[in-house]
């Protein structure tokens, strides 16, 4: 059983912001699909929003990808926002000690300071 049976990913665009919305479980088996979608859609100079509200589970490989996105955004001086997911997902960020260090928001429209 590799990955959730029901995983899909959609992307939206709002101005110069790419919104990535994965649904289902993010693990070793599905994280590459998020990576592929972002690589395909993310255009030069666009800010990016990762909306985790529809994610039911995430393991450390998902965590690693979020860090990867964070690195890419800060290297390109772009803004990354991560919309907080359910408790189970946020717990992974908490345990890893990353919660205070990542740009979480509650609403995709919410700007960071």
């Amino acid at each position, binding site marked *: *059983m*590799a*990955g959730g049976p029901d995983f899909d990913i959609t992307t939206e665009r709002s101005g110069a912001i790419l919104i990535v919305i994965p649904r289902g479980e993010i*693990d*070793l*088996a599905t994280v590459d699909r998020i990576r592929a979608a972002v690589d395909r859609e993310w255009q030069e100079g666009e800010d990016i929003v990762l909306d985790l509200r529809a994610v039911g*589970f995430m*393991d*450390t*490989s998902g*965590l*690693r990808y979020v*860090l*990867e996105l964070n*690195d890419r955004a800060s290297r390109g001086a772009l803004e990354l926002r991560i919309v907080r997911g359910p408790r*189970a997902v946020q717990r992974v960020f*908490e*345990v*890893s*000690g*990353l919660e205070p*260090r990542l740009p979480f928001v509650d609403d995709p429209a919410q700007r960071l300071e």
Partner: protein
Amino acid sequence: MTQEERRALAYGLVMTAGFVALDLALGNAAISGSYALGAVVAGVVGGFRPAALVGVIVLVLAVASGAWNAVFGDSGYWARLFVAAAGTLLALGAGRLHDQVAAQLRRQQLLAAVADLPEPGATLEGTVASVVDLLVPRYARFAAIDAGLAGEQVRLAARGTQPVDPATATETRLRARGRDIGALTTTVGRDGIGDPEFLRVLSGRIALALDNAGLSQQLVTVEQRLQAILENLGEAVTVQDRTGRLVFANHAAAELLGAESVEELLATPPAELVERFVSVTPDGRPLDPQALPGRAVLEGRSVEPLTLRTINKLTGEERWRITKSTPVRSPSGDVLLAVNVIEDITETKRAELAQRLLADAGAALASAVDFEQTLQHVADLAVPAVADWCAIYTPSGTLLERVALADGAAPPAIAEDALPLLDVLRGGKPELLSARDWLESALVAPMTTAERVVGVLALATTTSGRRLSDADVDLALELGRRCATAIENARLYNQLEHVATTLQHSLLPPRLPDVPGWSFGSLYMPAGEETDVGGDFYDVFQTAAGWTAVMGDVVGRGPAAASLTAMGRYTLRTAGALVGAPTLGLARLNENLRERGDLALCTVALVQLKEGGHEANLVCAGHPLPLLVRGGSAHQVGRIGPLLGAFEHGHWPPAQLELLPGDVIVLYTDGVIDARGADGRFGEERLQEAVAPAESARDAVDRIRRALAEFAGGEQDDDTAVLAMQKL
């Protein structure tokens, strides 16, 4: 005057002259009455005109004979003159009769000559020319033949002098088989054919001749075309008469049926033709001659096309052919001929067999568990589809070891020593062997991967009489490549499994050390294949500040993760041993991971045990918090610190934990709480529940193992590791 008439005139004159000479010599006046015999002879021999000429001379001589006989005016003279005149009249009658018979004869000759037309193979034009040549100049001054209906005629041929006045010419319609096909125009010549009755008969004959000439020409054309088509047809075509004998065959048939030429094929009895081949049906049964479509059709049976695999007994060449047979029936429905179309489907059939063999072999090889068993399966597939015998060899030391053998129903004696097995293994080139006394043919092909020859595949034919060809070499090479890939994969798999097992063992302590005042229990369940190295590690080691237990988890799997795992374990161990401060070890590991630059991440939970004391220091770096089991309940202890490798700088504050005897500290990786079951993920709560009643380190591990087995059952995505320790 014709030659015949001149001759008759000469005969008459000579005879008359003879009588006159007798008359003069004998002085017998009575002879003059006989002068007319000359005219009679001329009439009988030459017809009316010589008879009339001789008759006039006879009468003149008879009159004149009175002078030299000095009998002018006497009664005898008049009587003799009368006899001569009567004889002359008789001669004229004979002459006319002769002329009529001759004319009749000529008409008969003309009709006979026309009836002989057309000459075999003559064209319509040729036949028309022959007809006018017959008529002119002998029977008509002018003759012309027009084709088509009146009014729309085309002149096909004309001969002689065209009459100035068209009214003097006679036009006769030419009709054949109730059809008006043209007209014959003639002007009557000396030997005239002016009789309308005769002209009608003649024109009928001419019309028939012309019709036949046209028809036969048409037939010739059709036959020539048919012949040309059949000759050029790729398919072999034969025609059998009612006795089964071949009456027609094209070149393709001669070639396919193993004959030197069409003539040789036609001269060979059918039974002998069948004998030239070993013929079997696609399912391998020998051919029943009764099933041959041509025979069935001649016997009035309807029959399906027959597919045969034939082996030429002389050359050993294998061909596949499909024979369809169609009857040619008489108007009454009797079968006169059987037309056989024999299609050579060798290429298609071979390709089909090769594809099937390769597909079956591919499927067998892909599902391989035990590759020797699989190779045996491949050998079984090759017999009898390709050969009568098949063996597969792989190197064993300096020798070749036979790992698979298929020798069909009747094992032929194959002298394997005589096959160039080692040469092919070393050279990597296939070898095709021609007939020896113990085999028909053999083929040894290397089994190659991109890099090397991993074995040898041998095929041989014996009892089937079939001779292996270049097409089989290609097939054997392809089969060899697939076998080689399977062998190589099996070898690599074994190697990888060995490496993985070795590596995995190096990442975990062979056994946990004895630590005074503490007991340990551990569990390690790698996920996935045996060849995959996991990212979880744990260790228990001594430092200057006491014993340290470590549980770590590298994000990711496989060789890259394994190298990080090793780095994590040994960095912590070394740093701990050198400085005795676990947090410095974490900082060091964090730096090492950051230096790699590829976002290598690792989580660690670390417990520093104070020997003899009643406390422990807990440090967590992004790792699930340890559980403390005390008095039948379990709860998380420690403080969360950032995982290693994510940020340049970090701070990992230790948490101090007061311990009571019997307390159990449980370290675990996320593989435990992330374990997937029917109800979702195992989770922290189930873990705490499962471990709460634990009475020892060993018991804690066992409870987690059982709970996981019950919850998740099957194979997991992630490694699972548990390290429990109890203060005694």
